[in-house]
């Protein structure tokens, strides 16, 4: 069972994180000060650490180096009220694996936790071919084929599809797409992403692959149907 460490001083938030982590089938530990958190993180092995920033004892971002230096290989998700683009970029640049601003929606946290939990296991996917039934993605050639017919995609559409494929079967939120595919760390307000997903989805459907579905209120799921469908 994967273990998740929550370092968070707000009990309400900690409870929400714990609920999501347990829904994903993980065991959780909770610490509410930075010092206790670092001690737990370096003394035990966790898959993911959910780290707050403005904690009693200091800033979680500053503690990341100490956690890493203590031998932890956990993936770090920063969950912080410092949620402006500049804060997020700072956190990511200083070594966080993901950064979710507060207030967060439970679905968003779940999607990100899931992505992090998977990240440790899907390294095998880094070979050239990603195949989902009729849908084949060749990473090096950057081509997409559905039923052996080439589907022309723009570079961004290809990156979008690759990100979906890497998180196949999981809910992917719009924010995750903006961050990972467009590398933009602010909320543009309008759902610009929807148009892009819509276009990619139409292309795939025209070629005969219904791969992308909308997860209402949450985001999208890439769930290609089996080959014979």
């Amino acid at each position, binding site marked *: 069972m994967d273990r998740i460490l929550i370092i968070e001083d*707000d009990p*309400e*938030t900690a*409870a*929400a994180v714990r609920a999501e982590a347990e829904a994903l089938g993980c065991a959780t530990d909770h610490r509410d000060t930075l010092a206790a958190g670092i001690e737990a993180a370096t003394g035990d092995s966790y898959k993911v650490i959910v780290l707050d920033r*403005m904690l009693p004892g200091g800033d979680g971002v500053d503690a990341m180096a100490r956690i890493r230096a203590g031998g932890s290989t956990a993936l770090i998700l920063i969950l912080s*009220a*410092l*949620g*402006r*683009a*500049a*804060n997020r*970029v700072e956190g990511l640049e200083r070594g966080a694996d993901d950064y979710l*601003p*507060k*207030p*967060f*929606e*439970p679905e968003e946290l779940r999607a990100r936790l899931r992505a992090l939990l998977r990240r440790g296991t899907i390294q095998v996917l880094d070979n050239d071919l990603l195949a989902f039934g009729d849908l084949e993605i060749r990473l090096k050639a950057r081509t997409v084929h559905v039923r052996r017919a080439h589907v022309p995609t*723009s570079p*961004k559409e290809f990156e979008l599809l690759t990100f979906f494929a890497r998180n196949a079967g999981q809910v992917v939120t719009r924010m995750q797409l903006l961050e990972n595919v*467009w*590398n*933009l*760390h*602010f*909320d*543009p*307000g*309008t759902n*610009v992403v929807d*148009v*892009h997903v819509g*276009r990619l989805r139409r292309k795939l459907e025209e070629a005969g692959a219904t791969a992308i579905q909308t997860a209402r*209120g949450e985001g999208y799921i890439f769930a290609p149907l089996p080959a014979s469908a």
Partner: protein
Amino acid sequence: MALAVAILSLSAMVLQYRLVESRLMSAQQDLLAADLNGLAALYDQRRIIALRQAIDYRATAATGEEMLLLLDRNGATLAGTRPEWPANLAPAGEGFTSENPTTFTEGGTRWLAVARTLPGGFPLLVARSLQPVDDTLAALRRGMFALLGALLVAGALVGWLAARSVMTRINRINTLADRVAEGQLDARLPGIRTADEFGLLETHVHAMLDRIENLNRATHRLSDTIAHELRTPLNRMLQKLSRIEGQDDLTADLKSEMRQAIRMFDSLLDISRAEADAGTGGGLVPVDLSAVATEVWDLYDPLAEDKGLLTKAQITPDLHILGDRNLIAQVLSNLLDNAIKYCAPGDRLTLDLAPDADRILMRVADTGPGLPDDLKPEAFDRFTRAERDRSTPGHGLGLALVRAIAARHGARLTLPPTTRGFTLEIRWPRLQQSD
């Protein structure tokens, strides 16, 4: 300054010169008067004979400093230090009075002379050489001119040294001001401060900078605190909202309202942070502006097309600036989002990015409703919205953020006049490619 001192001392010297000159002249006159008195005393005793003897005696002991000549009534020389009467001098008056002596020049020497006719028609000339006086005055003049020259040189030198010292110290403060203007709020003058007005000025400037720096730091800290204090309760609300079941539409609305509020206050914090950081180069790195523009354009282009806008982007590749990629993306995102929001199907939306003199010109133009004229002066202020747009979602912070971010990058923002729609130009300072 040096000139004034020189003029002052020059007039003092002229005064002294005149004084010396008149003293020397009166001394010569006194000598002349004494000579005449002596001759007069002899004449009183034995008339012409005595005069002749005395003049002869004096002539043998001639010093060259006096001139004596006595003629008879036919103009023949009776006695004298010289054989002839000077050509340019005529006897004037009678007796031995020393009043109204005349001066005449002979052989390059000036003489102070008294020429008289003695009773019986004997012309008498008594003169004293003014050579010693002239020599003394000439020496005095030479001394004065040398002194004046020395004074001018010394004055100029002292003035230059004083000015140089003042300029050096003013330059120190100017350099500091330049560094601060460039954004180095922590720049200070090194070294000890002197106990004069300059030291006081430096102390004041430092106190001022400390205060500015503190305010700036407080702004940064405040935005973090606001974020924490506001987002934490919002977060709890959102978590509780998620537990409500069966009223999906209502909770979705509430969530969306909360997102709007967060976005608004993020924008406000972004604006104040960008304003606080304006001019500071800190945190800015070389950014491929062309690449960012292309990415953001590609993000919004499909949205605009779906809305029926005619879009066109002309982006010159490989234009680099010193910037913050996310902030630049935010600027473009705001501008394109605005354009798409306000334009109607059939309107045109264009983005141009091209070199412009020493800058890079970014122009976002649309043929939508544009800005009402009365709104233009305050278009970039916070919460400025046109009456007609009240029904469109938004807070009037987009352009304020655009301006703050532009200022953060030292970019110039202009609203060129257009016949139709809205056009905004940003001139980014180009990255110096030398390094």
